[in-house]
């Protein structure tokens, strides 16, 4: 079963535990600047929205890479950058429609979410379950359950 990161922005408080968990897992350092997941704080509305790679099936980054440095992790479905192959040309950063693959000056390579090999640190660190790691085929399960409960399980339900 493939799983996917599932984001519910309603639950996000903007604490950035996810960003620190990401940088720590990948680089052994607490640094929001090195995180592959970013939380956006839209202060005029009070909304906080975490955003990261959704692991497209037909991944623009993978197809555009001239040296085939991006491959599919068959276990998780993640599109993974092989730093040994990446030449830092940044073509993938142009082709990605979502901006979720980015160049890192320090290494001269690009970085993106690789689902931590199947145990995403961001989801584990999130204190409010705004980020969860769930069955890729059933990201709607919780929302369906909530509606099912509302429509069919409450005393007033028909």
């Amino acid at each position, binding site marked *: 079963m493939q799983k996917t990161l599932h984001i519910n922005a309603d639950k996000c408080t903007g604490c950035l535990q996810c960003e620190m968990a990401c940088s720590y897992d990948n680089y052994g*350092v607490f640094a*929001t600047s090195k995180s592959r997941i970013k939380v956006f704080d839209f202060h005029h509305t009070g909304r906080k929205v975490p955003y990261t790679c959704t692991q497209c099936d037909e991944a623009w980054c993978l197809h555009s890479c001239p040296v085939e440095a991006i491959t599919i992790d068959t276990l998780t479905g993640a599109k993974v950058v092989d730093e040994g192959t990446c030449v830092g040309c940044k073509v993938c950063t142009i082709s990605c429609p979502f901006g979720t693959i980015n160049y890192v000056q320090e290494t001269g390579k690009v970085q993106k979410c690789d689902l931590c090999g199947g145990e995403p640190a961001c989801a584990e660190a999130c204190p409010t379950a705004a980020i969860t790691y769930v069955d890729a085929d059933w990201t709607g399960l919780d929302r369906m359950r909530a509606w099912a409960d509302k429509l069919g399980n409450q005393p007033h339900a028909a």
Partner: protein
Amino acid sequence: MSWAGKILRVNLTDGTIASEPLNMTWARQYLGSRGLATKYFVEEVDATVDPLSAANKIIWATGPLTGTMASTGGRYTVITKGPLTGAIACSNSGGHWGAELKMAGWDMVVFEGRSPKPVYLYIQDDVVELRDASGLWGKSVWETEETLKKTLQDPLVRVSSIGLAGENKVLYAAIVNDLHRAAGRSGVGAVMGSKNLKAIAVRGTKGVGNVRDPKAFMAAVNAGKKVLRDNAVTGQGLPTYGTQVLMNVINEVGALPTRNHIDSQYEGAKDISAEAMATPRKSDGKKHLVTNQACFGCTIACGRISKMDEGHFTVENKPQYWGASGGLEYEAAWALGANSGVNDLEALQYANMVCNEQGMDPISFGATVSAVMELYQLGVLTKEQIGIEAPFGSAAALAKLAELTATGEGFGKDMGLGSKRLCEKYGHPELSMSVKGQEFPAYDGRGIQGMGLAYATSNRGACHLRGYTVASEILGIPVKTDPLVSEGKPELVKAFQDVTAAFDSAGICIFTSFAWSLADVAPQVAAACGEEFTVENMTTIGERIWNMERDFNNRAGFTRADDTLPKRLLTEGVKTGPAKGLVSRLPEMLPKYYEARGWDAEGRIKPETRERLGL
């Protein structure tokens, strides 16, 4: 070790910047943030210095847990000599700025001297520059942050700055970061203004990576997060209602200071409570509260984000106040509301936003408003002098005074003096509800006896964050004590004060202490910094810090006579509620407190105490 290991020293007079290694001996004795920065300060600055002179210094400091994954590890402290009090000033803020400074590779920034013209400090990791701020001078905190992000072409830069209040040297001007988090008290913003320092903009990309034992650290961090999640206060009460959860509770126990402490229960409390913030308004059907928000790394998320009624008289035709913005915390709601007798939630939020926008401490501002209202009620101050009729309960007066104070126009100049100087000026010093010049926060020291002693002995003037015995006396954390009795309180106050100093110095938020004891903090600090940081050692560190602050104040000229409360709390009994008839029994508690502290009868630190603490 999770200290960055170096500090910045900026001489504003000469325009020079130097990097220095962190004094590691002091780091191990004083931990970080509040403790460590105060150690630097007291070693370098004469205690008798004029707070607004070039000879005063001002320090922004992080702790060893700042910028790590330790829950709430995003705090920084501003240390200076406070112009409101003349005592050590030590104001703590959350948001994201502190973590950003640490991730740029600096434990603290020490500012000396005074710049001949307005400047701001720009820090991008190792690149540190003093830059011209003449274009920023005259701008609010909000405009300053927006302008700097645009000018620097960096939306991720974090800004700590002053607004008009700091520029105008309002004696309770705050330093604000991330739009609505503030190092709020004692007038630290006025010191910044006096130095022509408008802002510090920071971008840190290095991160914090030198944790001593990463595996043990993550285990301790995760254990700590679980404790916070499972606790009723930090896991449910604070995220849902914020600190405002206290409004009705404190009112019921009869310790909600009302109308400048004339009363101790407020008939309008429910209108300005957490529950009111979450109930749709009659005017436009929308809720005042939009959502909660966390500071950096915080898994509690008590912050309030509110949105005003656009048709309210305070913000009609002022769209800059219509967006979601930092909402009322309990202290602000009390100071602007109960203490001035104003039960118009929207008006309180407007005044609160002006405080954030222009950098003012809402506690001291609100308490100064209430002193003015009492002077108005007595006929000492008139409509002509103030510029508006100012009876208790006037939302219009509250809003107008907020604007005048920030801009320094008209009566705003007097307002900016704070209640002590203002009441003295108009011949009624007894009406200032303050200690050492700093106004009380939201708990009546008669109905909660421990708090009376905590206020009288707080090193930065009246304050709830130096020794929050409300936790024990009202909430039963860690053990329930009777708020109406004074027995045992000297020891309780001392214990809270010492432990709080240790929490503050670690770089975490004191609100964790609703759930955490030092037994939860010490393993995190130990894994990050060194095995010697046990509960026992951290308690001693806290006590050492408290005594160091006290020693500075004594050298600044404070004596036993300053460890007191306004006459009202010592002689006028509470009028209603469970504490009816009570006055503060400070005179009984103070000598016992000195004894518990190892101080002499005049409140001076005994030589053997100095020796025991290594001072």
